[in-house]
């Protein structure tokens, strides 16, 4: 065995120096680093996390648009393909915001590397904020990608960009938080898949992405109104067509209420260390 000698290490400090200056600056940097890491995580596999959902969105448009363009008129005077675009954008945005936080957390839990995030001096709000913001970002990037490509085939009008932005942000946030909750609650990939396949997928498909709920029988119209996803899609679509099934303010109220409730639950879970700190 060869002896190893490689210079002298600095002596152990009695008090740890913060090179970032104040306590606040240090914790801000901690938060920013976690956000950076989470963004880098999906950016490094962008082909899978961004390009793939964009392709899926475009396929939906081509297939449904082609088949239904001549037969269905969801909004009077609007081509079905153009009607479909905002719904597809919102669906992709929501699904990817959810996928980002949930898959990041479950992967880290299963691989055991979540410990690297739990050992540092990060508060529960910094932890939540970083996972949430990166999910919102992924949702928006995918949504923008789907919009850019589908709008090229069937451009919808843009009437109220502010509503588009508000519902995109609120929707991505809500699904980002739901993803955090699902990621924390699940211990295995198949449990997470249950969330995805039995809650998120049906809720998005039945939210009026592909149709206007006005065309539904009264019973199913009433059921749709219990689905928060319906309000996200409907409000988002209002920003394009200035037409919607319910008033956008009402939709916003429902979405914000759901967001507050989900965020409250997530904060309680992370602050209490539920399934994170044994």
């Amino acid at each position, binding site marked *: *065995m060869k*002896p*190893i000698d*490689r*210079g*002298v*290490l*600095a*002596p*152990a*400090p*009695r008090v*740890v*120096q*913060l*090179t*970032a200056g104040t*306590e606040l*600056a*240090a*914790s801000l*940097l*901690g938060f*920013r*680093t*976690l956000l*950076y*890491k989470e963004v*880098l*995580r999906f950016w*490094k*596999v962008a082909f899978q996390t961004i390009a793939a959902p964009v392709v899926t969105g475009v396929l939906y448009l081509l297939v449904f648009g082609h088949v239904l363009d001549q037969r269905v008129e969801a909004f009077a005077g609007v081509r079905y393909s153009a009607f479909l675009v905002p719904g597809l954008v919102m669906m992709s945005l929501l699904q990817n915001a959810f996928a980002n936080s949930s898959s990041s957390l479950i992967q*880290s839990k299963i*691989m*055991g*590397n979540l*410990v*690297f*995030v*739990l*050992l*540092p*001096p*990060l*508060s529960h709000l910094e932890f939540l904020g970083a996972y949430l913001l990166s999910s919102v970002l992924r949702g928006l990037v995918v949504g923008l990608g789907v919009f850019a490509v589908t709008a090229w085939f069937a451009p919808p009008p843009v009437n109220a960009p502010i509503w588009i932005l508000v519902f995109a942000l609120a929707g991505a946030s809500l699904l980002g938080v739901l993803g955090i909750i699902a990621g924390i609650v699940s211990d295995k990939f198949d449990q997470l898949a249950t969330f995805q396949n039995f809650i998120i997928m049906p809720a998005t498909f039945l939210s009026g992405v592909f149709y206007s709920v006005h065309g539904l029988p009264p019973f199913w119209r009433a059921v749709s109104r219990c689905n928060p996803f319906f309000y996200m899609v409907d409000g988002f679509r209002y920003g394009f067509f200035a037409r919607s099934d319910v008033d956008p303010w009402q939709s916003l109220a429902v979405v914000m209420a759901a967001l507050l409730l989900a965020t409250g639950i997530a904060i309680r879970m992370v602050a209490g*260390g539920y399934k994170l*700190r*044994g």
Partner: protein
Amino acid sequence: MPVPAIEASHVVKRYPRVTALDDVSLRIEPGEFFGLLGPNGAGKTTLISIVAGLVRASSGRVTVMGHDVVSDYRSARRCLGVVPQELVFDPFFSVRETLRIQSGYFGLTRNDDWIDEVMTNLDLGPKADANMRSLSGGMKRRVLVAQALVHRPPVIVLDEPTAGVDVELRHGLWQFVGRLNRDGHTIVLTTHYLEEAQQMCERIAMLKAGRIVAMEPTRDLLGRLAGVRLALKLRGALPTSLRALVVEETGDHFVLRVSQPAEVESVLATCRAEGCHIDDLEVGHADLEDVFLQVMSDAGEKRAA
């Protein structure tokens, strides 16, 4: 008295079916090299996890450099570097990215000089830009050590750092950890390799079933079993007059303990006189393993009583 590096008072951790820690108190002084020993399931990792804030105690209090690990967790965690037992890594990043990110979590910017120094010391330099996935187990272990050191913590906890590690890395790792300790870092070590604990640790606590059953300077622990250990393989029965000296017996293998080296001769003479043939013979000193077995069996008896 200086602020203790780690202080645990009356720590209890109850899970629904088992009590992992049952009223554990200990105080580790700054600059100490402290060993935490015990069989699997004794509560070593649970104790370390509570110190690190990964697990919350059911009751009791733990401080790191005087900072409560719950109420003042930011300061406590800045003072602590933990090398986890499992070989965990983030497959998305290279070694350097991993270390920079870890550094950022602790609020450190412009930390590259230190990161380079740590990488050099752990022989990670050539792998700096390699993806974590591509590294061998030993290299991944080194990155875990480096990650625990990025924020220059005064207290370093190593949870079974040499489990499944080859001889050369083990040797290099102990040299490095030894130097960190000489530079003033407090080191807390859990290990299954009693030989390592005997060589490295100044003081040792032994845990069994969630309780501390011994906590003494290593030399005092070894002193408990002073004398010479004599292992014999015999052909024929052990002379009855030697029965009292036996500490271990398996088939024709006997381990005897005598108080002085001179007594070895009389044991051999007795064997010869009784016509008992010695096939094999080994003389040694009592080591930590003997003490460990002794302490564990004493603790078992006490509990049974």
